[in-house]
């Protein structure tokens, strides 16, 4: 079975392969890693050779892992080293780890993985070959030897390691095949002896780093060993330089010396002269050089310089070299590079870098002017920052990071034609870090202080939270009504409200009647005081003056609107009961307060009975009309008042104020009282009526004289009583009267008050006031007397003289603090 299985598997595989091969497409072949190499132990590259690509485009990915770790990484750079390669840069190269590298080839069909390659960076180091191989034959003491010189391979990145290469040299005669390999060591030159003359040799050199591999062999260099019979080769002049624009030196490179000791002579001639001179000094500047001192240096002249090599067999002359000393100046690097840390007060410390020009350069005389340039970089950094300084010999550095180490170098150049000097030796700068400490201390102190402040503030907030809030967000003030405390209103305690208003002891007790009458006189001046004549011991209260109300629109509209009548009716129904209770209480409790209450009432009525000017609706106050300027009098709206008015015989033009003569009664106090006096009043009213047109409905009774002084007769207005019915519903019908211009100005400051005239008495002793002619009253204006079907007699019980403002503490509330009573609110109470 097994065999069958395996054979069947084989068959299937074969089929698949054949199919694949037929179609020409299959999964890719296995790639192979050819080589991994590191140039300098800090980076390395790997190359692979792809397998067959299976007919489809194939992607190659290289994976590696380190040591024995599980994690697999992918090649960081596929490009730098060419196709099919992976370059590991410094960051990815660790010379101490062994890399396990595999390459995977993927195409649409499948993938294939190469065998893993274990790479140890140190072992795969193979530098580039050395460069600049130069050969020289030298004959000394009749011995010919070959001097080979070269340079180590150049590295793109020098790095921080000094690489020590080991070199190896191999040579062979040109015609032969076998190489002779000579280990050289770490030097970059070698003297080869035992060479056959007359032969041409081929020489190569290679190097190695540490334990790695040998580099490739450098390119071949051929040299012919002179057999001692030929003249020397032509030397070449390398360069000429002047360090200070006063002298200059020239160097040359000799060729092969042809087997014999060779002399070299330098010859020159100046521009415009025929004379040829020989080099004045061969020694000062070293071998193969010529030094021209000051005497022999001329500026702005072109030198024609040649070098001749002479030996026994002949001589050879180099090519001429033309040089104008002015343009070949290359100074020495600057010297005396010093750093100084300067710490000015109140400013950030900075570094001052100073240097001196090279000693030979004569800058003092102005002959040579140097320009300087410096470069610096952080110690660990890679790139230099070059700063051109100009002709000054100092530089201030402000923007260095404290605590870091920097390397700085300077070089110079003549300000005109010339070349830059070598860089000065490296100078290290270390910024002291104490600045930071200072800053830190400051910051710490600041932090501590601010946290303390925050703590204190939060503590005070906690303790006096709302006070602060109140300080920050002051509460919105509510409407202010003179005499009425909204808080009291809210609380709903009419007692207090009344007391605030000045009405004490509401309702007044029975013996208040006379007093009330007295106190019904309402003054038109602000500071009038109602003097209770029968004060029984509450002088203070009586004397309380309620200031004139000034705001004329404090919600009176609602009170006065007839549309609200129903509302008020409803509410006022509740009133009497409350009134009663209050009255009882008041009367019982506060005997003496009645007077004050009276006065207060009056006084308050003064305020509140000012009819709303703005109220466009008819004020249905049955109060008698009041003169405009008059301080509010009284609108006692109860018919009782009307009665009283009617009954009043004095000529004081007091608006019918329903005196609270009823007040001395109990709950229905005003009413009952009035009931009693009803007949009287009716008679009086009739009397009134029978009198002249101008019926003064007097509120005041009994004591007109005293009060008259208070009153301003001409300011008063009065309503003519239309008729008084004495039938079942006695009512005072007040005529409509034109407001004939009795709008004298009051001395009362504040809003002008208007008083409406009584138009009708409705519904049980309710005097409906005539809306002012100049006020657009819409409702109730011309109610005929018919509507006044209220019987005086009736409803007495319900008559609340609660036109006294005291009553409607509730009303007040809903009137939003209006100081005026809305008589309409009382209307239903009479029912």
């Amino acid at each position, binding site marked *: 079975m097994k065999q069958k299985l395996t054979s069947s598997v084989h068959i299937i595989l074969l089929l698949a392969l054949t199919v694949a091969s037929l179609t020409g497409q299959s999964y890719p072949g296995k790639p192979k890693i050819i080589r991994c190499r590191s140039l300098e132990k800090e980076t390395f590259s790997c190359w692979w050779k792809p397998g067959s690509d299976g007919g489809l485009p194939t992607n190659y990915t290289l994976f590696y892992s380190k040591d024995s770790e599980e994690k697999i990484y992918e090649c960081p750079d596929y490009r730098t080293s060419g196709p099919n390669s992976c370059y590991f840069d410094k960051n990815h190269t660790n010379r101490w780890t062994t890399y396990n590298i595999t390459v995977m080839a993927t195409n649409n069909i499948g993938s294939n993985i190469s065998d893993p390659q274990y790479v140890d960076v140190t072992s795969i180091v193979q530098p580039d070959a050395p460069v600049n191989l130069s050969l020289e034959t030298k004959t000394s003491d009749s011995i010919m030897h070959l001097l080979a010189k070269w340079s180590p391979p150049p590295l793109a990145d020098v790095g921080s390691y000094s690489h020590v290469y080991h070199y190896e040299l191999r040579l062979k005669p040109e015609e032969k095949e076998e190489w002779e390999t000579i280990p050289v060591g770490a030097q970059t030159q070698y003297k080869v002896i035992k060479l056959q003359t007359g032969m041409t040799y081929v020489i190569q050199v290679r190097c190695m780093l540490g334990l790695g591999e040998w580099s490739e062999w450098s390119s071949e260099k051929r040299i012919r060993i002179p057999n001692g019979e030929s003249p020397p080769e032509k030397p070449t002049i390398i360069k000429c330089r002047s360090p200070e624009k006063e002298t200059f030196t020239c160097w040359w490179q000799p060729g092969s010396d042809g087997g014999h000791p060779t002399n070299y002579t330098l010859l020159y001639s100046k521009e*415009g002269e025929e004379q040829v001179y020989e080099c004045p000094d061969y020694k000062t500047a070293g071998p193969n050089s010529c030094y021209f001192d000051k005497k022999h240096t*001329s500026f702005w002249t072109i030198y024609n310089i040649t070098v001749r090599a002479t030996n026994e067999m002949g001589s050879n002359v180099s090519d001429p070299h033309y040089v104008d000393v002015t343009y070949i100046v290359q100074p020495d690097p600057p010297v005396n590079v010093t750093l100084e840390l300067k710490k000015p007060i109140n400013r950030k410390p900075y570094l001052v870098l100073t240097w001196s020009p090279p000693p030979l350069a004569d*800058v003092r*005389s*102005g002959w040579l*002017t140097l320009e300087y340039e410096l470069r610096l970089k952080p110690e660990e950094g890679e790139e230099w920052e070059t700063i051109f300084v100009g002709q000054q010999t100092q530089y201030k550095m402000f923007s260095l990071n404290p605590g870091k180490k920097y390397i700085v170098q300077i070089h110079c150049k003549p300000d*005109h034609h010339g070349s830059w000097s070598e860089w000065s030796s490296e100078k290290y700068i270390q910024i002291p870090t104490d600045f930071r400490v200072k800053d830190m201390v400051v910051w710490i102190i600041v932090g501590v202080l601010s946290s303390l402040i925050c703590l204190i503030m939060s503590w005070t907030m906690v303790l006096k939270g709302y006070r602060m809030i109140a300080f920050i967000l002051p509460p919105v003030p509510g409407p202010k009504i003179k005499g009425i405390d909204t808080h009291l209103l809210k609380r709903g305690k009419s007692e207090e409200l009344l007391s605030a208003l000045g009405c004490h002891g509401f309702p007044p007790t029975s013996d208040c009647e006379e007093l009330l009458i007295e106190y019904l006189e309402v003054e038109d001046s602000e500071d009038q005081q109602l003097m209770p004549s029968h004060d029984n011991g509450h002088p203070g209260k009586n004397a309380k003056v309620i200031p004139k109300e000034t705001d004329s629109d404090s919600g009176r509209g609602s009170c006065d609107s007839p549309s609200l009548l129903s509302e008020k009716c409803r509410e006022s129904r509740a009133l009497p009961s409350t009134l009663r209770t209050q009255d009882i209480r008041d009367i019982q409790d506060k005997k003496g307060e009645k007077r004050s209450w009276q006065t207060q009432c009056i006084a308050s009525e003064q305020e509140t009975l000012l009819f709303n000017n703005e109220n466009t609706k008819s004020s249905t106050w049955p109060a008698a009309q009041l003169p405009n300027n008059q301080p509010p009098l009284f609108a006692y709206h109860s018919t009782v008042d009307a009665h009283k008015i009617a009954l009043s015989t004095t000529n004081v033009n007091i608006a019918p104020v329903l005196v609270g003569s009823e007040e001395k009664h109990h709950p229905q106090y005003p009413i009952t009282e009035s009931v009693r006096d009803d007949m009287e009043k009716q008679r009086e009213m009739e009397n009134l009526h029978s009198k002249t047109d101008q019926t003064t409905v007097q509120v005041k009774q009994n004591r007109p004289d005293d009060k008259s002084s208070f009153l301003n007769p001409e300011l008063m207005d009065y309503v003519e009583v239309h008729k008084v019915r004495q039938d079942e519903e006695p009512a005072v019908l007040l005529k409509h009267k034109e407001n004939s211009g009795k709008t004298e100005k009051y001395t009362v400051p504040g809003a002008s008050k208007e008083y409406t005239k009584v138009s009708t008495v409705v519904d049980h002793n309710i005097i409906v006031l005539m809306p002012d002619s100049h006020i657009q009253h819409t409702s109730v204006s011309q109610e005929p007397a018919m509507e006044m079907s209220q019987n005086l007699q009736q409803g007495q019980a319900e008559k609340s003289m609660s036109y006294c403002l005291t009553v409607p503490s509730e009303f007040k509330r809903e009137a939003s603090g209006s100081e005026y009573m809305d008589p309409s609110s009382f209307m239903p109470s009479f029912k």
Partner: protein
Amino acid sequence: CHTAGMPTPNGKEYAQKIPREELTHLILKLLQAWKEPLSHFNQHIEHHQELPDDSLSKAKQISNMVLELKTGVEKSMGIISNSLNGMASSEATGLSISNEANMMSDSDFIHCFRRDSNKVQSYLKILKCRIMPENSC
């Protein structure tokens, strides 16, 4: 160069030895010698279409600078009376010089001008450090 005939110090020592006034005179002579050839040169190269515009403007700029430099040196040195003498003599030489200058090739012309301007610069610097040694000397 057409100014090769002029005796000018070839080295630092020589330049330092010469008294100030003579050095100034020398400078002015040099500048004067180049006045005309420069203008000729400018006219000459304007016809060269292949030169970029920068070169033309640069050449003009240089000629102006030379003139300004001459004027500046004269003023700063306060040489007025002497210059008259100098002018007379230099004018004579200038004519012959300018003739020579016309015959030079462009590259020679530029080469000569470069050299002479370097000379003038060096002499001026020496003068400056002699007169005012404080500033960067």
